[in-house]
């Protein structure tokens, strides 16, 4: 029997889990990542990971986790796979626990759980305020173990450029570029799993890491891999404004009792601590008495926007509100929130133990992503699988806090064995494919590089990128208006035209970060249009997608998945039904019990 071979692109939680599963099946796996996998964006996750273990005797259950996720996602998620994820979640926590994650413990030595947004239960396991880092390290260590046994070959510092797709439309490998030698090479595989994470960079500034550009997803899209629900972008309510990055202030700050407020009098100049309770407006608690500060993210974000832009109650007239943890005992803060409070102190030089933090919403997460089927993470192109934030299945129109880490690990865990099974069942493997298929793809990519290096235009890629970010943040985040979305799309097309006049300030052949960035930028522009056009078409409000001109959810017309397809250089949107076979849709309200 022939030995199949698998490639995994991306070494965050999803990619590492997929890698482990493939290695466990005894199939060799090549793992590609821009950054050493231990430095992947997943390390940024702070708050925790959800599983209904009911360890606090509150009567939590898998059915409730499932219902919270579907309801929180405003019924846009296909339900069967979400159900399977919720069923698998407790086992995932057990597995991570066995891998040695330093989860917080109760006095009995059991895992401790905290409360997160969009639920009434303590369902979130956590390791201090650096849960993502701890989980990623656990998987990274297991992969290193398989690597030392020769089962995994890592290609770190290599970027994915394109899939190698044969004449019958089957993926046979990838084309990548070494970020030091800038050499373009192809790599054969029977199946490729993509786990390339988020797309924050198309919004310029976000809570995401630098390499979260969505470039890989976009490259695949342009090669015929469908993209779904691109318009669903989560804006996190509480981030620290910054010029290079909008640093997240995790929901766990509110989960541990943090309160959001503004002075009732916007001209109040007193230091926040001296403002009496009665003169503070705890608007989330007032507007949403049942969930209070822990309403889902889209709701909290819009509430903060309303306070700042409609009620004009932003702090000192600025776009900011207080997130206050000063009333929580220092010992609790140190034990449970140290990692995140440290970030605030480090980057602003202000101590959040004594001074309420100033925060504002920031682009945070994409619910949309590569289209995958409802069973095993397969995309629309045979041989290509996707898992993690780069695909669209698990979060509907809005993701609940601490549900991403679990969906990454679950999805990666499904994709690995699915790819192995697919590869083993192939009639003819990648070895039978003509070498010209690989040669042609390589040539196509080399020519792109050559074009960029030799182009004598006048446009700076960073300038184009900044403008893209401004357009997207202004028109395609919290409040969406059709006229503005049309304007945004035409501006992005202008940027695409300017892109052709690009001029690289670095034309060298060694470790040329400018060249790589320019390549990513071209893909970002395409993906930005997918997001914008999806938003333009969808005339309703659902989850994170909010149009004041269409303020209600419209199930009759829009209980549908957006499916974007690239054909003849054009983005086409089609729609398909959502699988609502388990929980019938009902109105989503957080001002009362559901």
């Amino acid at each position: 029997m022939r030995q199949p071979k698998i490639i995994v692109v991306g070494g965050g939680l999803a990619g590492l889990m997929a890698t482990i599963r493939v290695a466990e099946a005894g199939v060799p796996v090549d793992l590609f990542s821009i950054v050493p996998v231990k430095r992947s964006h997943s390390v940024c996750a702070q708050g925790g990971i959800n599983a209904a273990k009911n360890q606090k005797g509150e009567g939590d259950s898998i059915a409730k986790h499932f219902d919270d996720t579907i309801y929180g996602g405003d019924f846009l998620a296909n339900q069967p796979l979400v159900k399977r994820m919720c069923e698998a979640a407790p086992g995932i926590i057990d597995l991570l626990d066995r891998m040695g994650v330093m989860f917080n413990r109760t006095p009995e030595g059991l895992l401790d759980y905290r409360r997160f947004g969009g639920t009434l239960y303590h369902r979130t396991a956590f390791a201090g305020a650096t849960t993502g880092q701890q989980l990623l390290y656990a998987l990274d260590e297991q992969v290193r173990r398989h690597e030392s046994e020769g089962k995994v070959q890592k290609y770190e510092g290599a970027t994915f450029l394109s899939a190698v797709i044969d004449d019958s439309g089957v993926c046979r490998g990838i084309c990548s570029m070494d970020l030091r030698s800038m050499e373009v090479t192809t790599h054969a595989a029977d199946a490729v799993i993509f786990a390339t994470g988020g797309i924050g960079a198309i919004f310029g500034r976000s809570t995401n890491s630098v390499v979260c550009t969505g470039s890989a997803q976009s490259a695949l899209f342009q090669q015929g891999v469908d993209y779904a629900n691109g318009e669903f972008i989560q804006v996190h309510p509480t981030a620290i404004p910054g010029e290079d990055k909008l640093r997240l202030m995790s929901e766990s700050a509110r989960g541990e009792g943090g309160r959001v407020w503004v002075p009732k009098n916007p001209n109040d100049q007193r230091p926040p601590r001296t403002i009496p309770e009665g003169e503070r407006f705890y608007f989330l608690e007032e507007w949403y008495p049942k969930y209070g500060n822990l309403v889902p993210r889209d709701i909290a974000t819009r509430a903060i926007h309303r306070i700042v832009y409609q009620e004009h109650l932003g702090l000192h007239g600025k776009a900011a509100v207080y997130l206050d943890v000063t009333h929580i005992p220092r010992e609790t803060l140190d034990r449970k929130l140290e990692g995140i409070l440290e970030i605030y102190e480090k980057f602003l030089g202000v101590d959040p133990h004594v001074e309420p933090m100033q925060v504002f919403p920031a682009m945070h997460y994409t619910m949309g992503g590569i289209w995958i089927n409802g069973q095993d993470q397969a995309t629309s192109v045979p041989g290509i699988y996707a898992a993690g934030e780069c695909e669209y299945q698990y979060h509907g129109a809005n993701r609940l806090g601490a549900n991403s880490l679990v969906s990454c690990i679950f999805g990666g865990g499904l994709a690995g064995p699915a790819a192995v099974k697919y590869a083993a069942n192939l009639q003819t493997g990648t070895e039978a494919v003509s070498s010209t298929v690989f040669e042609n793809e390589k040539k196509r990519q080399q020519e792109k590089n050559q074009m960029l290096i030799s182009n004598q235009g006048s446009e700076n890629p960073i300038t184009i990128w900044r403008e893209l970010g401004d357009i997207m943040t202004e028109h395609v985040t919290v409040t969406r208006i059709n006229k503005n979305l049309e304007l945004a799309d035409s501006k992005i097309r202008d940027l695409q035209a300017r892109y052709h006049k690009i001029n690289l300030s670095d034309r060298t052949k060694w470790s040329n970060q400018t060249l790589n960035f320019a390549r990513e930028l071209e893909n970002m522009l395409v993906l930005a249009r997918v997001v914008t056009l999806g938003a333009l078409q969808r005339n309703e409000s659902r989850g994170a997608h909010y149009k004041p001109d269409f303020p209600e959810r419209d199930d009759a017309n829009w209980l549908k998945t957006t499916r974007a397809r690239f054909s003849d250089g054009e983005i086409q949107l089609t729609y398909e039904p959502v699988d609502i076979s388990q929980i019938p849709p009902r109105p989503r309200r957080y001002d009362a019990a559901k």
Partner: protein
Amino acid sequence: MPNKTDKKEVLVKVKRQSAPKVSPHWEEFRLQWRPYMNVIICLRDISENPVTSDGRPTTPVSYDSNCLEEVCGSCAMLINGKARMACSALVDQLDQPIRIEPLTKFPVVRDLSVDRQFMFESLKRVKAWIPIDGTYDLGEGPRVPPEIQEKGYPLSRCITCGNCLEVCPQVNEHNPFMGAAIFSQVRLFNMHPTGKMHAKERIAAAMGNGGIEDCANAQNCVVACPKGIPLTESLAEINREAWKQSLFGWLAG
């Protein structure tokens, strides 16, 4: 503190090196000051407009970064002579001109970007993982007393930045000393109820060429660590264990 008018500008000097074997040179840049600027923002400014302070066009500076919140470990470099993370190095807290250089204990790739593969290889050598039987469902992990968690958690926050190697006199071209971070990881895994079962293997791997015996107790590491990891405690403990194991062999308990 520089006065207000000074603050309009930030003067930055960067050590440039276009490839591994090329000799380095310095370039100076004048940037516009903004509030809460950090060193990464300075490097981005240079990328957008790569012109030196004497008006010469140059290439953007190569450097590594990802998270921009001091948790991925990418951006370690020498800033005013000190090994630290560029993303959390606030301009207002630095003397100018700000001197930026690559770490010296790792091979330079280009400019400020260095190759820290050595550390990942060392993690392999000491088997820095919990050897689980498989990812299939085997039920819950072992109970862990809260005090073990409270000791282990700080160790598990190591971001493999390499600052502790950079400042260690024992790490140099002639000595493959693995560095404090690695021994601290050995301590972490040896403290876990399952990891403990293989403690001796890890201790054995932590000895020998480049091993714990080479620690000369300079204690620079603990000062340089951006995550405040109690490295000297880890070194002392692994040193003790190593002694025990070499004196009494594998029987030592």
